[in-house]
């Protein structure tokens, strides 16, 4: 029985899944990155200048309220970076697309810096407001554990030489760490006993920060999101190139 051309050739993935092809992914990131870098820089600079120079002091917290423009976006991105890594890890575990494993690996150093910024700005902000740099509060503690998970995740990638095994084990670690990513977001709601306040941004108008702080905060959040996207796209490209270089070097060594 003769096979038609359609059944003889394996179907090429289309749409979103076509970017599992490293060449196609690199092509997309080369096209998108210049715009992303520019938009990230504009929104970050505009949001921080607006927040720092053109917003009033809070009646209770004084000028320390200006820390919100760094603390809230970085904390959001610390959690969202782990969520992105979780999705990429699941794609690797289920569909075995190398680009997704490399994207998760690429996002980890960005996530760890975001977590560090959130922890540092939180401690600096907490000192005058709570009278302490640190408290074993549910949200602070779960954030610290998330930070340690990030370090463990990066260390695990470095410790295992075989890339597919490294991707498998780090993906499992990512699944486990997701518990703390969720906890660091909802710990305040689960255990209402810590120093940390509830959400600064909420769909509930009553719970939200005042508009005068809210709009520059949204611009800063947009800046952090765009910077995260630019960094992860760029770093994934770097990981793809390094993997290709290692594969060629291994082939060279065999010849």
């Amino acid at each position: 029985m003769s096979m038609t051309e359609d059944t003889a050739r394996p179907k090429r993935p289309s749409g979103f899944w076509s970017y599992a092809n490293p060449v196609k992914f690199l092509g997309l990131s080369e096209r998108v990155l210049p715009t992303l870098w520019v938009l990230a820089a504009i929104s970050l600079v505009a949001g921080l200048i607006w927040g720092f120079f053109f917003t009033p002091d809070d009646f209770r917290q004084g000028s320390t309220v200006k820390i919100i423009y760094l603390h809230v976006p970085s904390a959001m991105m610390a959690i969202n970076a782990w969520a992105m890594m979780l999705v990429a890890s699941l794609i690797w575990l289920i569909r075995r697309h190398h680009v997704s494993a490399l994207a998760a690996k690429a996002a980890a150093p960005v996530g760890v810096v975001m977590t560090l910024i959130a922890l540092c700005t939180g401690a600096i902000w907490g000192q005058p407001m709570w009278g302490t740099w640190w408290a074993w509060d549910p949200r602070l503690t779960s954030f610290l554990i998330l930070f340690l998970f990030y370090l463990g995740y990066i260390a695990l990638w470095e410790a295992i030489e075989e890339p597919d095994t490294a991707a498998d084990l780090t993906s499992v670690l990512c699944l486990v760490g997701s518990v703390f990513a969720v906890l660091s977001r909802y710990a305040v709601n689960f255990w209402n006993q810590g120093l940390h306040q509830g959400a600064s941004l909420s769909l509930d108008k009553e719970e939200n920060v005042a508009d005068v702080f809210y709009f520059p905060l949204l611009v800063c959040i947009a800046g952090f999101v765009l910077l995260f996207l630019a960094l992860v796209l760029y770093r994934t490209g770097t990981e793809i190139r390094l993997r290709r270089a290692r594969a060629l070097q291994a082939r060279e060594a065999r010849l």
Partner: protein
Amino acid sequence: MPDLGKYADTVLSAYAVSILLLILLVVLTLRQGTRARRTLQEVEKRSKPNA
């Protein structure tokens, strides 16, 4: 420069630490990327005659 009152050190140190960390992250990312491109180009150039 806005008047930050008695919390000037607090606010300025939070901004300094965060901006420093962000700049460090971007610079290291770009440097690693440039190095990876160069490495790949060299390896590809070397491996072409063998292909």
